[in-house]
């Protein structure tokens, strides 16, 4: 592949000439912006690392596996596992619900719905994405929490109580409630980005499938979806990123309990929620421990993103659009 520089600059010109032409200015300016992104990322990691040095040294890897979080200065024991667990569990619950819903809705909006209806619904979905998270949290406290406590929770316990995941006590707040709120918060992103990806599939692809005798669903399922796979996966990871980092709505409904519970109906805690709750009044060791948790969250997000990249590289086949 030819490099863009070679195309735009067929021969070497004097510096003044190149600057006057604007190409060089644009080149320098944009490379500056691009480097800035890298610098900010590196700087964040550096700062997190420096602030959390005291606990990094003190606890080492036992920080990751530790299950006790005791900020009392007489004890000062810090373990991240309950919060890593809570963050992952709520995000997984959220995706299990929002991915089928979101992708399904996106297929309807781009492939099946009438243009007018599709436009209205898309507008509403984008509106949903813009609602501040504290509002989702408040709404959940007043509607979802009582519903979970009085109906959904007892129902799940009755029929699935034989598994370790749906056992009493039922508080209304907890992992499942937080996961549901996150599902509602992530699925506008998934719909919106997936729909864009589906719309970007060339019309010829659909026409060719239909011409070969495929039904509309066969065309959608076998031609359009694989073509747009990359965009859809991208939307899922965008949603996951929001779920992992969401703070306000989660802390309002998860119960803020620093112990690990297997039951999804029980209460838990996420990294972001704990940091938001405790950082303001944090003690001398507690502060660095909280910053180290941020570092853990950062690494988790990076690993997940890297995993996503790997998955895309491994599964991308000829028929689909490339990044």
């Amino acid at each position, binding site marked *: 592949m030819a490099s863009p520089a070679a195309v735009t600059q067929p021969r070497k010109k004097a510096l003044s000439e190149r600057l006057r032409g604007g190409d060089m200015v644009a080149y320098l300016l944009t490379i500056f912006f691009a480097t800035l992104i890298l610098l900010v990322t590196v700087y964040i990691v550096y700062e997190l690392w420096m602030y959390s040095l005291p606990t990094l040294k003190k606890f080492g890897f036992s920080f990751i596996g530790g299950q006790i979080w005791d900020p009392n200065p*007489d004890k000062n024991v810090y373990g991240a596992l309950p919060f890593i667990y809570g963050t992952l569990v709520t995000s997984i619950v959220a995706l299990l619900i929002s991915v089928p819903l979101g992708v399904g809705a996106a297929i309807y909006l781009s492939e099946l719905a009438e243009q007018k209806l599709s436009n209205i619904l898309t507008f509403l979905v984008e509106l949903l994405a813009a609602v501040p998270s504290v509002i989702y949290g408040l709404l959940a406290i007043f509607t979802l929490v009582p519903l979970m406590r009085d109906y959904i929770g007892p129902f799940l316990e009755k029929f699935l109580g034989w598994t370790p995941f749906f056992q009493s006590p039922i508080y209304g707040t907890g992992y499942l409630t937080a996961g549901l709120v996150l599902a509602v918060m992530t699925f506008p992103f998934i719909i919106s980005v997936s729909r864009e990806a589906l719309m970007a599939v060339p019309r010829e692809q659909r026409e060719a499938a239909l011409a070969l005798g495929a039904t509309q669903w066969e065309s959608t399922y076998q031609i359009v979806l694989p073509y747009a796979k990359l965009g859809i996966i991208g939307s899922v990871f965008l949603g996951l990123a929001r779920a992992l980092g969401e703070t306000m709505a989660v802390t309002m409904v998860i119960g803020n309990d620093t112990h690990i519970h297997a039951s999804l109906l029980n209460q838990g805690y996420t990294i972001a929620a704990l940091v938001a709750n*405790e950082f303001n*009044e944090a003690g001398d060791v507690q502060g660095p421990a909280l910053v180290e948790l941020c570092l853990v969250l950062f690494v988790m997000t990076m690993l997940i993103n890297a995993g996503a990249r790997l998955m895309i590289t491994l599964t991308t086949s000829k028929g689909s659009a490339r990044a």
Partner: protein
Amino acid sequence: MTKFVVIGLAVISAFAGTASAADLLINGAGATFPEPIYQEWFSQFKAANPSVQINYQAIGSGAGIKQLTEGTVDFGASDKFMSDEQLGKLKVKALHFPTVLGAVVLTYNLPGINTPINLTGPVIAGIFLGDIKMWNDAKIAAVNKGVALPAKPIIVVHRSDGSGTSFVFTEYLSKVSADWKSKVGTNDAVNWPVGMGGKGTAGVAGLVKQNPYSIGYVELLYAKQNKLGYAKVENSSKQFIEASVESVTAAAAGVKMTDDFRVSITNGSGKAAYPISTYTWLLIPSKIEDAGKKKALVDFLTWMLKTGQKGASAKDYAPLPASVVASELKQIALIK
């Protein structure tokens, strides 16, 4: 072009004009619990001394101490007195000035029970340790004869954020329960053995309101202003006392004041004393370089102790006992 410059200068001078109306700006930060009365006091003080503007940011006791230590504020405020270690980190030694008193009450949601229930220190510790699990536990029933306690599990609610309220509450529990002291201890954030966490006083109160058969702790002030029911707590003289402005001041009067005003009044003696009470303090540097600031703070403290105290109970804060006011007025002379 000149027109814009003229307009610009006019705008700048207008801002300069508002700044000069209060030519002395004093910044303080700390405890959230006394914020309403502090704001009231600062605005009343400004009305009497228009040249002094005191700004107060309610960012929490711990954060207030942090800012005072870093020297970014002129004074701090806290619901817990500073430890020797914290005082050692200060460049300029700070003096503690108690301002008002507060209390922590246990608020609960028991459908069908309208009179205040009775609780003892060991029972409260048992509930928050998770040892007492049901409302009709024999230990609760023993102090609530004739009350039809429901056979329901107790849902414990505590603060999820670090808080002076939690500090007072856990300090009290450490005094009345050896188990609590060894397993959990005293701090503004602890490893709660059971229960759900609510963010802020309003978060705890909201969770209690929402969950039948729950119990949590909030400031007396908040409970009163939001008309929450709360329990009578047994004090060290074996009396069940309802928290009120009077019973909190009585708790302060029952404890001998120390020279540096760093004293805990939880589980204090005195027949009418409410046991989960506390002072809240202003932390004033003992040496203030700026003569104007020094005079303003001294004037404020004197005004607060003599005049400000009278307005406290109207805002549901317990005023200081007269003896404490007298010795604080003497301490003002230590500000150099």
